[in-house]
């Protein structure tokens, strides 16, 4: 285990179970990356100090060191590696990691747009900065033409631009250009008191509100040394599984629709609505914003409400299982799902694909089973892993995970520990650093948080697994036909807001 030596040198980081941190020099920065890649670790995130911090500290107005951070997901937990860079005078540059982890490219370019700290990798096109037209990579050849789509799409979805190079209806290459909903989230975090940052975390990607706000609170609570009551942790897990179930139901309906089976959309959107109404009755909100708060939960769940919610979950999951039989037997649906948008296991591993999309391509990572935080430590989550890597595999993973979320929900809701719903949290000391890591419905969601003076936020970096999975979509579409893109894209269902920051 080449990672072993780094792991042993690293110091514990509060927040996510098993998290560790390590300060390195330039050569070690590359060596850790090599060892992580060689041992099957995944690049989880990469970020730098924020705008202005390269020369002056934003809070204290003293000269500040620039730094670049990298988070690796290993079997033991997350390893945060920090490389300090010479400050001020000349533009800081650090060794790029694109050759080892393809997903690093866009992360490095985004980090440059936000901080002015550049990597040594050759692709230096702006990513979040849209001041100039984007320089797409062109495909030449007889009969090749481009189709430009977006940023405003035909459906009710988030904005982004897709540039297809096609021959006839066959896609030779797709290049996505994102960043259209870049709203300065990291900078906005710095204007919020650290005890209120969970509200913005929930809105990094609204479909993953529980995952991001829990990850934020996990980091913060670790930094504050606060022990969250068991009841709150059980309720958080219930909310996280409700979020997963609701999103999977929505996707399963949309996927049926994109395969020409409108019946699927009607049925699954009805089930999703049933679930949202039950969530609204239980928690006072259809989408679970601002329910995970520092120290615990914003609202409790009385026994009768928990039972009513469990009844709905049971009914919804039973119907979903019945509908799975209908999808499986429908030849038209099966024909569209099977073989479409295939991402094989070796390519998925090479691209460092995470979460649901990875599990559909044989990469069996799931934080809830691998490095579980309470209450998952006692739940024995069954990972949903498929080998096919096509739309059918991603549909199967969703069906399996919906069923497993149903099982977990019934278990959690029937055994909520008796305790208070929240405890008070003190703002952590200036400079304290913590990391939160939660398996959201798309995959692992990371929040790296550093406290500033007087209860402020010095830095907060939220990371959605869509960063890793967008480039994989570009490979999955190759050789497919343009009319299959909506179906394949939906089978990934990646975040825009979550990665545009």
């Amino acid at each position, binding site marked *: 285990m080449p990672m072993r030596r780094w792991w042993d040198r690293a110091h514990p980081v509060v927040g996510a179970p098993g998290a560790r941190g390590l300060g390195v020099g330039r050569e070690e920065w590359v060596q850790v990356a090599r060892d992580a890649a060689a041992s099957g670790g995944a690049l989880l995130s990469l970020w730098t100090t924020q705008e202005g911090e390269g020369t002056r500290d934003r809070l204290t107005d003293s000269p500040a060191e620039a730094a670049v951070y990298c988070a690796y997901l290993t079997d033991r937990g997350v390893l945060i590696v920090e490389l300090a860079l010479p400050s001020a005078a000349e533009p800081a540059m650090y060794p790029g990691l694109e050759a080892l982890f393809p997903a690093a490219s866009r992360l490095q370019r985004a980090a440059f747009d936000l901080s002015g700290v550049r990597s040594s990798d050759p692709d230096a096109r702006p990513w*979040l900065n*849209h001041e100039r037209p984007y320089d797409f990579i062109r495909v030449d050849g007889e009969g090749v033409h481009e189709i430009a789509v977006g*940023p*405003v799409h*035909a*459906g*009710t*979805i*988030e*904005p982004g631009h897709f540039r297809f190079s096609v021959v006839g209806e066959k896609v030779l290459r797709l290049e996505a250009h994102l*960043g*259209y*909903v*870049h*709203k*300065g*989230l990291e*900078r*906005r975090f710095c204007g919020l008191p650290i005890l209120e940052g969970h*509200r*913005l975390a929930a*809105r*990094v*990607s*609204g*479909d993953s*509100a529980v995952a991001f706000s829990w990850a934020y609170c996990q980091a913060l609570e670790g930094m504050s040394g606060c022990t969250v009551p068991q009841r709150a942790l059980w309720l958080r897990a219930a909310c996280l599984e409700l979020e997963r179930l609701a999103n999977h139901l*929505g996707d399963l309906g949309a996927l049926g629709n994109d395969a020409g089976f409108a*019946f699927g*959309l*009607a*049925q699954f*959107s*009805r089930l*999703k*609505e049933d679930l*949202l109404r039950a969530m*609204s009755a239980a928690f006072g909100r*259809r*989408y679970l*914003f601002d329910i995970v708060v520092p120290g615990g939960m914003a609202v409790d769940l009385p026994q009768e409400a928990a039972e009513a919610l469990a009844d709905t979950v049971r009914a919804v999951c039973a119907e979903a299982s*019945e*509908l799975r*039989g*209908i999808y499986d*037997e*429908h030849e038209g649906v099966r024909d569209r799902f099977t073989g479409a948008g295939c991402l094989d296991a070796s390519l998925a591993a090479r691209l460092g694909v995470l979460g649901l999309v990875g599990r559909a391509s044989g990469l069996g990572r799931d934080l809830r089973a691998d490095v579980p935080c309470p209450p998952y430590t006692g739940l024995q989550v069954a990972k949903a892993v498929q080998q096919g890597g096509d739309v059918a595999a991603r549909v199967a993973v969703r069906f399996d995970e919906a069923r497993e979320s149903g099982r977990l929900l019934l278990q959690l809701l029937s055994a909520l520990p008796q305790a208070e719903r929240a405890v008070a949290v003190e703002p952590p000391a200036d400079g304290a650093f913590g990391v939160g890591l939660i398996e959201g419905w798309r995959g692992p969601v990371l929040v790296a948080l550093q406290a500033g003076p007087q209860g402020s936020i010095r830095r907060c970096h939220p990371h959605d697994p869509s960063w890793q999975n967008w480039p994989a979509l570009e490979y999955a579409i190759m050789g497919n036909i343009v009319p299959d893109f909506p179906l394949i894209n939906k089978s990934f269902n990646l*975040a*825009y*807001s*979550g990665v*545009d920051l």
Partner: protein
Amino acid sequence: MLKTLRKIASIGVVSEAAPGPDESLRIRRLLDERISSVLGRALCIRHVDAGSCNGCELEIQALGNPYYNLEGCNIRLVASPRHADLLLVTGPVVRNMEAALKRVYAATPDPKLVVAVGDCGCTGGILGECPASLGRVSNLIPVDVAVPGCPPNPVRILQGILTAISAPG
């Protein structure tokens, strides 16, 4: 096929009655009664995410489920602003979407209506105005009706749409 048909028959029609308009949502009174008589009840809507977190999008999508049955109210979400009578705009308008939103607005034929959806669209929300975000939708284009909420539920969004097309009270 038999299973599918049996499922359809066993579920029946779950669609609920649409809510009425709510004049408290109206912030601009430009169009008069004649417009709604011109439009009748067939309304084409183009949605634009100008910087949303995707929360409002989920609730707009929910309008299409069988309970709210948007198309049953003679309202369609269309693929191009050139086909639209009304724009449903979410999010604070971020700088990278400024040009796209203005172009969508320009491409929508007159007379047109704009409904801002969600706290961010109404006020700028938690993001407000910052170097990357220009704040509420009405900072960029004229807004007729603003539907607050984070996110507003589908009934509120539908009320906002119905308010926009009904005669000002």
